[in-house]
């Protein structure tokens, strides 16, 4: 019988009722759900302002039951800076894809991190520009085929992937910077714990926090959702090792 006592899991309250526009099996949805669960568990729904990017998650603002603003492509960290600086007691997070954060918005993210802006960044690395139809992103793997690297990314002419977490973690303003993956239940749980820690970092005023999430794009990768998870495991993780790139001592003390 369905009573609150035997309920194990239900859709988080931090979500609105609106179904997402994401393709079936796209793990953008998992990342959303984890953020929603964390906001709910930390009782932050009513003091949070989200900053949506340009990319597949442009409509993130439709799904979270919090205040939201929508940034120009790549500028979410700057917008979040503006919000947070005048509302330091509110919780501010950006949600950005790899084209948004690591291509057009590289300047904004690096400087927000360097300034130690007390914001949380959820960074979705799906190795391509999903929204515009699967072009090469700065994170596209060498040899990976995209609609703008049809015979596979040639590093000689198209450069090398950018390892964002490794790079961001070198900045002193950063309190928390880790890479997780969304490809199986165990890793999803670890990702959620990381998202929780990132928001705890912000709530405690311990500096810039970012969680990079390896994510799928079944549609543009041309794979089933299940095969996409395998691709993450077999090809993305070797190129983008999971791990804790920076956790400041103060954040290590946080018990969740």
């Amino acid at each position: 019988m369905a009573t609150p006592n035997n309920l194990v899991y239900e859709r988080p309250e931090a979500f609105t009722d609106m179904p997402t526009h994401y393709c079936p099996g796209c793990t953008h949805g998992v990342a959303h759900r984890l953020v929603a669960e964390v906001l709910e568990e930390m009782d932050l729904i009513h003091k949070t302002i989200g900053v949506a990017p340009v990319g597949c998650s442009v409509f993130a603002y439709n799904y979270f039951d919090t205040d939201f603003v929508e940034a120009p492509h790549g500028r979410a960290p700057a917008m979040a800076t503006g919000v947070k600086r005048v509302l330091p007691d509110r919780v501010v997070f950006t949600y950005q894809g790899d084209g948004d954060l690591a291509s057009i918005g590289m300047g904004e993210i690096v400087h927000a991190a360097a300034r130690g802006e007390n914001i949380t960044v959820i960074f979705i690395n799906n190795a391509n520009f999903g929204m515009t139809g699967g072009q090469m992103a700065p994170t596209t793997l060498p040899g990976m085929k995209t609609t703008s690297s049809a015979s596979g990314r040639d590093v000689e002419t198209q450069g090398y992937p950018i390892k964002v977490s490794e790079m961001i973690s070198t900045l002193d303003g950063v309190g928390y910077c880790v890479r997780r993956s969304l490809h199986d239940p165990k890793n999803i749980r670890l990702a959620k714990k990381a998202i929780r820690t990132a928001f705890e970092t912000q709530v405690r005023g311990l500096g810039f926090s970012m969680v990079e999430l390896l994510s799928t794009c079944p549609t543009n990768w041309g794979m089933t959702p299940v095969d996409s998870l395998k691709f993450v495991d077999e090809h993305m993780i070797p190129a983008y090792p999971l791990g804790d790139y920076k956790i400041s001592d103060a954040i290590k003390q946080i018990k969740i």
Partner: protein
Amino acid sequence: MAAKGWIEVSDTYCKGCELCISACPQEVMELDMSHLTPKGYHPAHTFKDGCTGCAICAVVCPDAAITVYREITKRPATVAV
């Protein structure tokens, strides 16, 4: 004996992506080919007994479509008046 559980899959949210199906450790899930959601997907469902209420399906679901329940095995303590 394994805990007994059951799930509900929302027709509004399920997109038939099968991620839950491949993740379910008890292998009790499949797409319901006899049913279409309003958006035109075959939704996931449990097709046989054996669900433990472990919630792994809900953990992997990108659309927060699954609600998970588990039978309560421990009786709530009764309070003497």
